[in-house]
């Protein structure tokens, strides 16, 4: 799976400024097909309606947090192959381990630049291309 600029992203974060930041960074990288969700529960609903190819989600959110969203995605047959990039505010090892165990495709720590995001995305695209 090469980095197709038409890849449809879902950006999940309860803080709209943050959604806008991620959306802008994705745009800088040439990805313009981006939708947003305010928390895990809304994200799941959107994902179940289909059409998404990539999930970028915050960890700490009301209603349903990012980790639960990730676990639910991995437990849902129709969604479990989706790449999921976790965003979080700090690199706590127990968080990283939990994310890895739950099957996160990548993990990125705020704040990050377009460059870092691009690296992470490419790694994920490569990995999913091989699979």
């Amino acid at each position, binding site marked *: 799976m090469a980095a197709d600029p038409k890849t449809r992203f879902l950006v999940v974060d309860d803080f709209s*400024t943050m959604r*806008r*930041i991620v959306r802008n960074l994705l745009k800088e990288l040439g990805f313009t097909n981006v939708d947003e969700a305010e928390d895990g529960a809304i994200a799941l609903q959107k994902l179940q309606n289909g059409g998404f190819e990539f999930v970028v989600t915050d960890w700490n959110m009301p209603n349903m947090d990012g980790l639960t969203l990730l676990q639910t995605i991995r437990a849902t047959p129709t969604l479990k192959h989706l790449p999921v990039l976790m965003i979080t*505010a*700090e690199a*706590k090892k127990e968080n990283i381990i939990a994310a890895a165990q739950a099957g996160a495709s990548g*993990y990125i*720590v705020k*704040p990050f630049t377009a460059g870092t995001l*691009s690296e992470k995305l490419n790694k994920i695209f490569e990995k999913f291309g091989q699979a």
Partner: protein
Amino acid sequence: MSDFSGMEDLLQDFLQEAHDLLSDVDNKLVDLEKTPDDKGLLNDIFRGFHTVKGGAGFLNASELVTLCHLTENLFDRLRNGELQLTAELMDVIMDATKGVREMFGELGQMVQPQPAESRVIAALQGALNGEMPSGAPAPVEPPPVIVPLASGAPTSAGASGEPDWNQLHEVVTGQAVKAAEGELITRAEAAPAVAAKPSATPVARADAEADSQAASPYGRRTSDRPNPQPAAARRTEERARENTIRVDTSRLDQVLNLSGEIGLTKNRLTSLRADILAGKSDSETLHALDQAVSQLDLLVSDLQNSVMKTRMQPIGRLFQKYPRIARDLARQLGKDVELVLAGEETEVDKTMIEDLADPLIHLIRNAVDHGVELPDERAAAGKPAKSLVRLEARQEGDHIVLIIADDGKGMSAERIRAKAVDKGLISEEEANTLDERQSLNLIFLPGFSTKAQVSDVSGRGVGMDVVKTNIQKLNGSVEIRSEPGKGSVFLISLPLTLAILPVLLVLLGDQPFALPLSLVREILPIDQQRIQEVGGKETMVVRGEVLPIISLARMLGWPLVRTPEYGVFMQTAERSFILSVDSFAGRDDAVIKSLEDFRPKGVAGVTTLSNGQIVLILDMKELLTDLGQHGEVGTAIRNFEFG
């Protein structure tokens, strides 16, 4: 010079959203004092600081990140039950919240925040280390340097944490870390994130990143910070007014929809005009024209309504900050006060919300400071120890009503009159003629205060007179009701919007003038037989009340051409009187155009009538003040060129 060039939009968005978050946190903190073990609340507050921290990182606001990080860690401990919430700890948290708010203020000035007070940072770190804050002076480190946080933030990546993670991950997952996951833990060199252009070169390699992270886990390094500027000087700068507004998209859609429909109707009219110009004037064409114009009429008024609605904001956004203010003040005064909010969803024009902020703060401070009693006084009066102050908003017809009510000791008309006489604000004779309502209104006089304002509490140089002036500027009015022993109520009544003013059109000769309808009580015929001279002034008795008759012509300095036949019973905050005029031209919803630089005294603005005639909207208060020394007012209006 701005520290945020290229990110202004982002900064504005962040501030707006973060302000809301912080207000929410403030309210939750007040709730938390009542239920210190509420896990849900602790979680929400934790998330509030966490979210602000995340956003602040992208703005490189490292000091804000630091402060939020420490506070967030504290809440992490609290929600995990590792720490217990004590009154001292609460004070530390309140200080930290205040620090965050001040940093928002600096960000609003487009400058990077200065480090938080070292006292606050030290107290947070102390609390995290399990020591109770003692209000100890600054830590060893001089304040401008970032305090070595890693030591005080045990849950974050410590200086030694970095290299083991891949290994750890292997142990846990039982598989070697793939390349992609090996990158998991790296962290960008925290360069200006958003401003950075996409770059083909990988930003930094893992080793370098690990170093930078160990050195400064919260964002930028110390050396990246701009030269510190005197924070005090900056904070005194006048805060720029918010000039953005958040509008529900469905409301914008409605505006769009209506403007589309207006376009269609305009097309219909254009085609009808062509028909009519071509000589078609049969009843069918005229009927169609009539229909199109009626439709346009309806659509335009709908559009006006919809546009007005985009300016409407729930007043709850203003109310949010007050429970905290009331709580802090009550604590300072040794009182137990709960501020109860109601009607937060009531919508008010945005400009009005901004202008209401100060008067409301003053009235709430007043209620807490002067209104409610100390706990032992309340006990003696047989009242519950906790006092309630109620702040309520609701819409009544085309008005917004705000209520600030307390269950305190109330005001005594007697004492207020005595005080006013004492201060030389009114004479003994005047005092004797005042009824209860008028007596209570004396507290709005400049220079009046029922209590020597020793505490800086109700200070800020704002008196009740300023509260009243501010409310009147919004075309509103304030009313007081009070019952000794039971409490006081302040009722503020405001128009829905400032853009449209309902007016009464009166005529002087052929010239119409507009009077704000809010001041008009009723319209009466003036019967010359009923006019009585009192002290050389004309008066008339209306239902037992002696009212002076003031002629509009005289007020404006115009010659009295004929005997006025009609009177408008007007009531301003200070006085009631009958304004005599020649005739009426009806009522209208005036769209006020301000006269910018050229504003004659006594004129609030101008408006245009349906026939294109320009009408002055009179400012009754100014005219009344100048009555007696008129000349200036009259001349100004006489010289105004009428269209």
